[in-house]
């Protein structure tokens, strides 16, 4: 039973590292947002795997991951809006004011 958990922990570490690598190396906003989300998914996979250690999965960890999920979506939304605003500043923006 524990070796499937080990495998998922390994996958979680890989996801976290891939996200870290993407976030550091990528320059485009969208790629960095995707990388952040991959990293988040990695941490959540680790958390859920830890929750699945007992036959009855640990509800506290599930609640933590749910909270983390909502936080990550709001951070992503803000990052994307900032990204689009940053991009529109490069092109001559037809100022409406």
């Amino acid at each position: 039973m524990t070796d499937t958990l080990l495998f998922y922990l390994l996958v979680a570490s890989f996801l976290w590292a891939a996200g870290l690598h993407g976030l550091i190396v990528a320059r485009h906003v969208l790629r960095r947002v995707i990388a952040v989300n991959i990293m988040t998914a990695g941490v959540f996979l680790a958390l859920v795997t830890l929750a699945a250690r007992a036959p009855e999965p640990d509800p506290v960890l599930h609640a933590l991951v749910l909270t983390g999920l909502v936080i990550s979506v709001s951070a992503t939304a803000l990052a994307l809006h900032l990204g689009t605003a940053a991009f529109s500043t490069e092109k001559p923006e037809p100022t409406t004011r």
Partner: protein
Amino acid sequence: MNFALVSLSIPLFTGLLLLMIPRYGGPWVVLSSTLSLAAAVASLVEVVDSGNQAVLLGGWPELLAIRLHLEPINALLLAFTALIQLLVSLYWSRNCRNDGFWALASLLHATLAALWLSGDLFNWYVTLELLSLVSVSMVALAGKDSIKPALNYLFLSLLASLCYLLGVAIIYGRYGVLDFQILSRMTVGDTSTAMAMLLMTLGLMVKGALWPLHLWLPPAHSRAPTAVSALLSALVVKGPLFILTLLWTRMAPMELTDKGGEFLAVMGVFALLVGGWCSFRTPLLKEMVAYSTVAQLGYVMLALGLMLQWQLRETLVALWLFVLAHGLAKTSMFLAAGEMQRIFGNKRVTALRGASQTAPVAMFAFAVAGGSLIGLPPSGGFLAKWLLLEPLFYDLQRWPLAFAVLLSTLVSAAYVFRIVTLAFDRAERGQAPSRDRVSEWLALLPALLVWGMALVSEPLILWLTRVAQ
């Protein structure tokens, strides 16, 4: 404990109210921060009389519920946050152009209050994330040229939060507990705890802009609106530092504290010197003030590092004094810099030529705040530096650290007086710019407070020594 939570919920409700009625933001926030300050002071008095307090939210058993706990230091930080919020909103209500600021400022205040009170590792993750999002939104208020630094700030703080969250996951995996008070009795120095502490420390260092991971701070703080950069430098940067201090002084197992202490002390020294040097070199005024934040945080890191290595009470007291003195001094410096930048309409430092005639009070505020950053007696900065120096001299092998503090004093003197000397230049007489005398005096107020700390210095230091463990 109720007073502390009242001090938290007042800005929260004000923020929500301001979202519904966006007009008259300034007066509302001034009123709310005054009430919050009163509540915080009441909680401070209460906690000093009747000792530490804790409340299990929702009445659930100990391990399960989130426990908010109140110690004199937390109550002091609560009052400090409310005070800085009051000072900045007094200044900003006179020349604020963007109504979105007020709601975010109140939410920022509420988040910081939640951070000071919380004692739960995951709850800290949520408050840190909320803090970053509020700060990024406020930096982005300044319009076009502040969006790229805000974006960079957001990505780096997301990276930091994920490092921190992974650390929390490992700690929970290893001990099954999230409350740091209980953890302080359970931690053992094995590899996973070491890795968790490393990850959490790296995350908090990025969020707190401590030296090697501070690159997001100068562009973000210098391009943000004046009041925002003041709030960010004085308060937001201190949140992660508070958590870092609690983690290392209370929760870290004995084996790790020595290594951690050395690491932090060395980073502190580098922060002082490199931050000071960058601050001395940069041509932009607000960027110079931002770099000086990075430098002054070096003192806090140095104090924390020494505290971990020698377990001396004075260094912890020096740490909290640095936090308070730097907060007040930096608020005044940023407000003065912003005021002068508005008057001269130019971001560069050279625009301040002859500022001591055209904007004397703002320049005086800048110089007085700079005096406290350098640590000239009898300012708050001097008190903190004095307490930091004492243990350094207990035995003479520690002279390199004393030499580093000496060097950092000279570097900070260099970058403060570079501006002050420019101000006395009477070369050309520009047209008399429009001066707002009242807001200049408001910018001076925090600086006078930090020098006023001398009047109450001995009782403050004795109380802090008794209280900080």
